[in-house]
């Protein structure tokens, strides 16, 4: 090897995605199409602009149950026949639900796509919701919950959502609870589908190996007959999000191997002009070389790893840090986490550090758009959150434009003040000591924890 040290990187290059084009069908369905013809593949995502946030507190899990059942049979074929039809086309057909949306997606090679798109139409518009399938999926959802609750990190995330949002729509678990799932049957599933799956509150993203005009023609041919079922029901006002409040909520679960430590607060919505500063701020905390992992793992050996994330939503989303620590070191890790979050507002990142942290953001973005499904997902995210489509090709530039001062300024407003702490672990090892330094500490025994309640029961 000639060079004794690693050579310098070259100037970064930007990505240019095919520009998406939008049209609205007569039935109100927004169609966003893009052409990228390097491979014979086409993808479509039908984004229904209603998900878990639209369901009632006492029916948590309904939108997820509806989505899971779409591919389990239609009025003309059963679950196995649907799977066989997709296989025969070499297609991938899926449906899933989050807080803000329910998404039915399909992808296939170019010659198979028209038939695969007809499958998407069939599962979205004519699901059977056969009683035995409803029962089977519901039973499986309930048994999956016990796996989730056995994992301290997964449980801490669910508790964090309740602590952050209480009774506001992002507070309840989108997968439901044992109690809410037990009350849900075919009638409510069919009701949710009939009420919310409608063309005038949905967006179809379609793109890949076809011209945009052909994409619009296909959308019109297949989904143009989708009738609007009466006037759009008024969207109920989004429940009031409680103001962030500094406090500690402990779920006492002595059988967890280690304690999950989560901290954070409600912050901005996806469409906020602060989104890029927030994304870079979270990147300064995240990853192996991010501040949290440096302080918690590298300098102090408190955990195998620590990181932060930003849950992007239509309404103000959630900023969360996470780590998993030995029960005996929870107090120290809690203080280090709080100090590290505070450092975002107080200690500006150096230029070198900022360059690499921003590179983790743009690099991840570029990798996500290597595939047609990835591009369709990015386009769908922009549409769902009312972000102008033109911003897709400005993503890299906007991330690069964030400087250290704007990270500090945003963190001081939107990330640092009044963070909550959620701990899931053996409370006997740390609850009393935390009481000395924190004014508001609440301990909830795992057996009395109720994720279905805005106050978490107990």
């Amino acid at each position, binding site marked *: *090897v000639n060079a004794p040290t690693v*050579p310098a990187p070259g100037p970064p290059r930007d990505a240019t995605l095919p520009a998406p084009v939008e049209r609205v069908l007569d039935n109100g369905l927004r169609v966003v199409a893009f052409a990228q013809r390097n491979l014979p593949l086409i993808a479509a995502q039908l984004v229904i602009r209603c998900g878990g946030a639209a369901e009632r507190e006492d029916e948590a899990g309904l939108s997820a149950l509806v989505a899971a059942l779409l591919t389990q049979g239609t009025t003309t074929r059963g679950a196995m026949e649907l799977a066989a039809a997709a296989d025969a086309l070499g297609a991938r057909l899926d449906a899933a639900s989050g807080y803000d949306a329910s998404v039915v997606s399909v992808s296939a090679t170019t010659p198979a796509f028209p*038939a695969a798109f007809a499958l998407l139409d069939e599962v979205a518009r004519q699901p059977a919701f056969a009683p035995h399938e409803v029962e089977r999926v519901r039973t499986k959802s309930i048994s999956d919950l016990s796996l989730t609750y056995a994992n301290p990190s997964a449980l801490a995330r669910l508790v964090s959502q309740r602590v952050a949002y209480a009774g506001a729509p992002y507070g309840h678990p989108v997968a439901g609870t044992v109690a809410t799932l037990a009350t849900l049957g075919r009638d409510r599933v069919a009701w949710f589908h009939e009420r919310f799956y409608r063309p005038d509150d949905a967006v179809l993203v379609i793109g890949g190996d076809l011209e945009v005009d052909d994409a619009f023609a296909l959308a019109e041919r297949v989904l143009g007959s989708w009738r609007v079922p009466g006037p759009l029901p008024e969207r109920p006002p989004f429940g009031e999000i409680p103001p962030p409040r500094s406090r500690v909520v402990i779920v006492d679960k002595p059988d967890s191997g280690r304690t999950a430590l989560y901290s954070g607060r409600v912050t901005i919505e996806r469409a906020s002009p602060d989104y890029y500063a927030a994304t870079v701020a979270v990147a300064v905390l995240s990853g192996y070389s991010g501040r949290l992992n440096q302080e918690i793992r590298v300098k102090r050996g408190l955990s195998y790893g620590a990181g932060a994330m930003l849950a992007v939503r239509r309404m103000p989303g959630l900023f969360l840090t996470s780590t998993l620590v030995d029960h005996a070191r929870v107090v120290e890790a809690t203080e280090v986490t709080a100090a590290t979050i505070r450092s975002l507002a107080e200690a500006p990142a150096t230029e070198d550090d900022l360059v690499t942290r921003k590179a983790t953001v743009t690099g991840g973005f570029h990798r996500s758009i*290597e595939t047609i499904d990835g591009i369709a997902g990015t386009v769908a995210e922009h549409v769902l959150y009312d972000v102008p489509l033109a911003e897709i090709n400005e993503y890299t530039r906007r991330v690069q434009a964030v400087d250290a001062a704007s990270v500090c300024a945003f963190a001081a407003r939107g990330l640092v003040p009044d963070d909550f702490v959620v701990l899931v672990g053996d409370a006997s090892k740390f609850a009393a000591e935390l009481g000395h330094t924190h004014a508001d500490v609440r301990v909830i025994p795992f057996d009395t924890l109720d994720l279905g309640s805005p106050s978490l029961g107990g």
Partner: protein
Amino acid sequence: VTVPSTISASAIDVAPIRYVDRTLANGLRAILVRDPRVPSVAINVAYRVGGKDDPAGRSGFAHLFEHLMFKGTARTGPETIDRLTEDVGGFNNAFTTEDITNYYEVIPSNHLERLLWAEADRLAALVVNEENFVTERDVVIGEYDQRILAEPYGMLDELVNREAYAVHPYRRGVIGSPAELNAASLADVVAFHSTYYRPDNAVLVVAGDLDADATMGWIEAYFGAIATPPVPIPRVHAVEPEQTAERRYEYRAANAPLPASEEAYHIPDAAHPDAAALDVLETLLGGGRSSRLYTALVYQKQLASSTYASADLREQPGLFGVRVTCARGVALAQARAGLELELDRVRTQPPDEAELERVRTQIASAVVRSRQANNGVALTMVRAVTERGDPELVNGDLARYLAVTADDVLRVARTYLRPENRTVIEYLPQ
């Protein structure tokens, strides 16, 4: 409007992968594929050393080396590759198979030269000392405990290799034996490194946003100066004798939630003309919920909770595996009887044209999808070179699959899925 519900797989067409293929004076083979859509690039460096090449009495060495390659060099500290990738928005990893050890990085394209430097550096100047060796040996043994001993059915793959091969070193698997790893010395490890980690035993593929001339220039500059030892690389020449009678092995495991079995049939190597038909047979039996095994055993007769078929085509003759895990309350003999009916069917009747078209469409669609991400393209090229000896084969694969006929499927099923050509592992709860 009616849309036909099936298509002809022959309608699926994909442009050939265009590439630059050059072998340096020191024997390193470099292949470049340009796709500038996204400013990202994937590097794969495959060394032609895998589980089958482990020295006798030292199984697990190739895999142990995969770990040691991350421990730093004369010029860099440990985790250099992690920092050069993760800190700039990329990632890296490595894996070891029976035939190769493959290292890969996906990075923003302006970092390509840095990672080529780092890959050349760890080939030329890896630090193998007692401390690294002992630490990583413990990590590998921990991985063995976790993946092989603790995971349900974790020992099954190991048993399949060990019992199906009588003489070929494929019988040792990849992860190796903790006893043999513990018996190894630093001198063994150093000797292994100098034997196999050399430019003429490496295939370097770069795919993505690259300039071919600049990239080849960097490869020449950083890899070209690494000397090739004058001694030849040892190769495996063992030939597995033809199996003439079924072998059976029963294993009682603490972590077998339900009884399971695998039948492993000897098949030829990945470059053999029957390879495409064997892949078609795999998908016919085990590809998706409309496959024969899932439909008959899981859905209709409810004898199995899961089924699996795999044409494990390797550089040297491999195995066709058929696995069944019982449904709750079903005895293994019952589930295997149901499986045997399906295998009899595939050995005696050609598939009808509609079913074959479905399978061809599934395979052709998978080929197209594998071309999307740079790292998938790079790995496809690595496998073509190391398992089949020619990167150009990737551009004929689609046509080869489409040319497989019903009679070809019947013929390979008859030729290879014979009871006397198989080893049956019964994996039972204690």
